[in-house]
């Protein structure tokens, strides 16, 4: 038998891990939002169109979808859609900031099979979290967890994007998860969406990456969604996961308007494979879009070919390279051997791709009231 990763690189008949962002609408404006969410897009899929996609996923035997946004629970048909999916044996894992989880919705969710919940939290205290996710968002997430616990939902996930500012709180996150009987999930900050800008301030330092790697090796029970495989180049062991870039091979993303992208971190025209409204729908895009077929061809290791660690890290994350202006067949910007930093230094301001998808709310306008002239 050939190595499993070689098989997976040639692509599967259907995705293992499919992310579906239901809406660009969001009540928060996190500074690292991968999809630059905020405002609903008027072209978003209707309930009927969304159900057609679910039918297609069921026919493809996609076992579950990862639902996100925006804030997916804002859609008025949110429960209708997850009921429809789970009734057809398409399991649902959805990510939420928790703002719509109250006594009633928590009970409703607790009564459902095949529905898993991830509450996003990017700091173990309000100061760290709210600096990234907005004021009050820590309290909102904790309230949601309390409601889920009170409704006896069972184990949910606390999902943390690892940053320079919260990486010192990993043990506190474990403590928080343990208090709720929850699972901890850590994911890598990608320089996508609004994080194209904030990444430079937020991504872990070199020393922190090393610390994270050893912390994760000691804790295989912490979930990572395979997102830190670039750290395997540190060479003391392999982190849990498939250890490859799954873009267009085992993963993809459907955005709120039905555009299909190679992975959740590359919402950009260059990685758009088609739209579910096209004839043939999602199955045709997955099976035969030129972009996905190309991603399933053997990829060149390029500048990384001469590095002894290439087998361990596979050159890292395609999205991270793309949005920082690095060549796709070169080192990851966070290459643990430092090759990424050298490459980044050579990137000019104009080398970074301009955004092709932004639903951010307009920057808040502050009204300055001019003092009326003093009467004498």
């Amino acid at each position: 038998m050939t190595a499993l990763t070689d098989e997976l690189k040639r692509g599967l008949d259907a995705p293992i891990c499919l992310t579906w962002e239901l809406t660009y609408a969001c009540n928060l404006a996190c500074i690292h939002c991968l999809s630059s969410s905020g405002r609903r897009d008027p072209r978003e899929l209707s309930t009927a169109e969304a159900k057609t996609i679910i039918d297609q996923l069921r026919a493809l035997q996609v076992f579950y979808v990862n639902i996100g946004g925006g804030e997916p629970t804002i859609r008025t048909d949110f429960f209708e859609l997850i009921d429809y999916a789970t009734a057809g044996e398409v399991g649902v894992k959805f990510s939420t900031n928790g703002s719509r989880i109250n006594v009633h919705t928590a009970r409703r969710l607790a009564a459902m099979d095949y529905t898993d919940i991830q509450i996003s939290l990017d700091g173990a205290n309000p100061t760290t979290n709210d600096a990234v996710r907005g004021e009050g968002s820590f309290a909102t997430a904790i309230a949601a967890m309390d409601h889920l616990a009170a409704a006896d939902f069972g184990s949910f996930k606390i999902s943390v994007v690892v940053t320079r500012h919260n990486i010192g709180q990993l043990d506190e996150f474990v403590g928080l998860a343990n208090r709720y009987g929850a699972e901890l999930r850590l994911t890598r900050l990608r320089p996508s969406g609004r994080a194209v800008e904030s990444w430079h301030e937020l991504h872990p330092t070199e020393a922190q990456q090393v610390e994270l790697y050893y912390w994760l090796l000691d804790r295989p029970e912490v979930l990572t969604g395979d997102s830190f495989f670039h750290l395997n180049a540190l060479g003391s062991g392999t982190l849990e996961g498939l250890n490859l870039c799954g873009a267009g091979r085992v993963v993809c993303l459907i955005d709120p308007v039905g555009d299909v992208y190679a992975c959740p971190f590359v919402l950009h025209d260059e990685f758009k494979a088609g739209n579910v409204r096209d004839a043939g729908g999602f199955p045709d895009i997955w099976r035969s879009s030129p972009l996905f077929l190309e991603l399933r061809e053997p990829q060149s290791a390029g500048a990384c070919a001469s590095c002894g660690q290439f087998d361990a890290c596979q050159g890292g994350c395609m999205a991270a390279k793309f949005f920082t202006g690095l060549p796709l067949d070169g080192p990851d910007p966070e290459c643990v051997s430092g090759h990424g930093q050298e490459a980044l230094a050579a990137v000019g301001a104009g080398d970074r791709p301009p955004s092709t998808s932004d639903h951010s709310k307009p920057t808040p306008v502050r009204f300055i009231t001019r003092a009326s002239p003093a009467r004498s």
Partner: protein
Amino acid sequence: MAIRPEPFGALAYHYGNRKLNFLRSPELVRLVDELEHFDSTRAAFDSLDLDARQWPAYGKALDALARSDFIEPLRPSPGVGP
């Protein structure tokens, strides 16, 4: 459990514990499909005419499936009695 055919064999998914398993050859998929009709894995190996060189690998694969509750023994294993 659901089994989805793939070029390398199949993916098996357990809706209860949300675990995913890779069945790495079409022959292994056939074994898992047919297993319930046999009293023992050895009987299944013999009757299904599986490649004998792969038996150890298939045994390991079945152990992994049992550990994550995809399959279960027909009878309790004999206890380690006095």
